[in-house]
């Protein structure tokens, strides 16, 4: 069973639809820690404000997620779901993240290289520096385009599995063992996105 965590941060329809299209039989949209505990895989989607992740703490899903991560359950955070895997975000400083990965998410700068930088970062941008050992991005060619819509981004670190350049490099995908995240929307990124989701389903 694949648990897709619903924490009232946007629309889950597209993610669930993509997983089913790729052949996932048993997809459960849930807020229950028990479902997350039993799940073979866990997906944490999410668009919108980092503040929404407070509900994960309130629902006791933080502890459950840590347990699932520790016992090796493949976990995929998408967009704000990726950001939650870090220590936190300046978007909602009072709401801590899971702190599975080091660093905090920050807003895109208003200026970059002397030019005004528009925010949010919306549209198709390319994946660079793809880590050869990434299981999530296996078969994805450097330069492949994926769809983004976000104003905060995670810093680049040793856990970064791919970067994208916009106002400098940020973490497009992160991966350490069974815990993974993507800042882009794989469910809206045509063939490249479907490849990423398929890789995750096949873990």
């Amino acid at each position, binding site marked *: 069973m694949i648990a897709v965590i619903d924490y009232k941060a946007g629309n889950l329809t597209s993610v669930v639809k993509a997983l089913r299209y790729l052949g996932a039989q048993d997809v459960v949209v849930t807020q229950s820690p028990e479902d997350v505990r039993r799940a073979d895989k866990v997906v944490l989607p999410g668009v919108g404000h980092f503040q929404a992740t407070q509900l994960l703490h309130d629902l006791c899903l933080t502890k459950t997620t840590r347990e699932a991560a520790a016992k090796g359950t493949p976990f995929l955070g998408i967009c704000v779901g990726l950001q939650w895997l870090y220590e936190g975000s300046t978007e909602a400083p009072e709401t801590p993240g899971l702190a599975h990965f080091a660093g905090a998410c920050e807003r895109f700068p208003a200026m970059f290289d002397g030019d005004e930088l528009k925010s*949010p970062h919306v549209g198709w941008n390319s994946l660079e520096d793809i880590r050869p050992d990434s299981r999530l991005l296996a078969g994805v060619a450097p330069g492949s385009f994926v769809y983004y819509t976000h104003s905060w981004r995670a810093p680049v670190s040793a856990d970064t599995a791919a970067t994208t350049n916009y106002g400098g490099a940020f973490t497009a995908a992160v991966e350490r063992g069974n815990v993974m995240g993507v800042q882009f929307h794989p469910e809206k*990124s045509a063939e490249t996105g479907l490849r990423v989701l398929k890789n995750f389903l096949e873990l």
Partner: protein
Amino acid sequence: MLTKRIIACLDVRAGRVVKGIQFVDIVDAGDPAELAHRHAAAGADEIVLLDITATHEGRGTLLDTVKRTAANLFVPFTVGGGIRSAEEAAAVFDAGADKVSINSAAIARPELIGEIGSSFGAQAVIVAIDARRVKGASDPVGEAEVYVSGGRKPTGRRVVEWAREAEQRGAGEILLTSMDCDGTRDGFDCELTRRVSEAVQIPVIASGGAGNARHFAEVFKAGKADAALAASIFHFGITDSRALKAEVAAAGVPMRLPC
């Protein structure tokens, strides 16, 4: 590198595409779901479905059309036309849309922008602005006026100011249609697009006037548009997004080219 987006727009009435993008081999109205998938496969970066009847009776048909179109469509999908409340927007999201486009209803009640955004995120709310230059004004572009009700009713509001207010109220993108250029095939209103694009931080989608690939290159460069809507252009010699994007890329604009 962030690419400029080419968005394929389907005008739909009673569940059928009535004009807008069609392939040269399709002379009559098409099926929205089929056309949307063909455009996505040909490299369109997004699909917009505009319900041009937008009547109360038509809502059920629209939701069914949205559902069929969204099925197995894995690029961003926007639905607009007659959405007047957060509840109506929610129904469209439930049917599979990623974003909604609101126009007259946002002018009538600007709070609607924030209401939809609070549930579905700012990225899911596109405010569409139908704009017309004010002829004879000292600054015809700066004083350009917002029209509603399908371009029939002037509002007395200035385009640039309304775009700024929409942004402040939480719009994720602006879809700017030049009524002066719409249907002319003489090119986008680059000056108006640039003014709006420079006035807001959020992406601006240019619409109205596309006739060839050069027009797209112009609105991306001179007009500073982040995206441009391709509607009827495919009637006039360019067969699909793939051909269009190759030409725009050749003009030096970053494009996502399909494999």
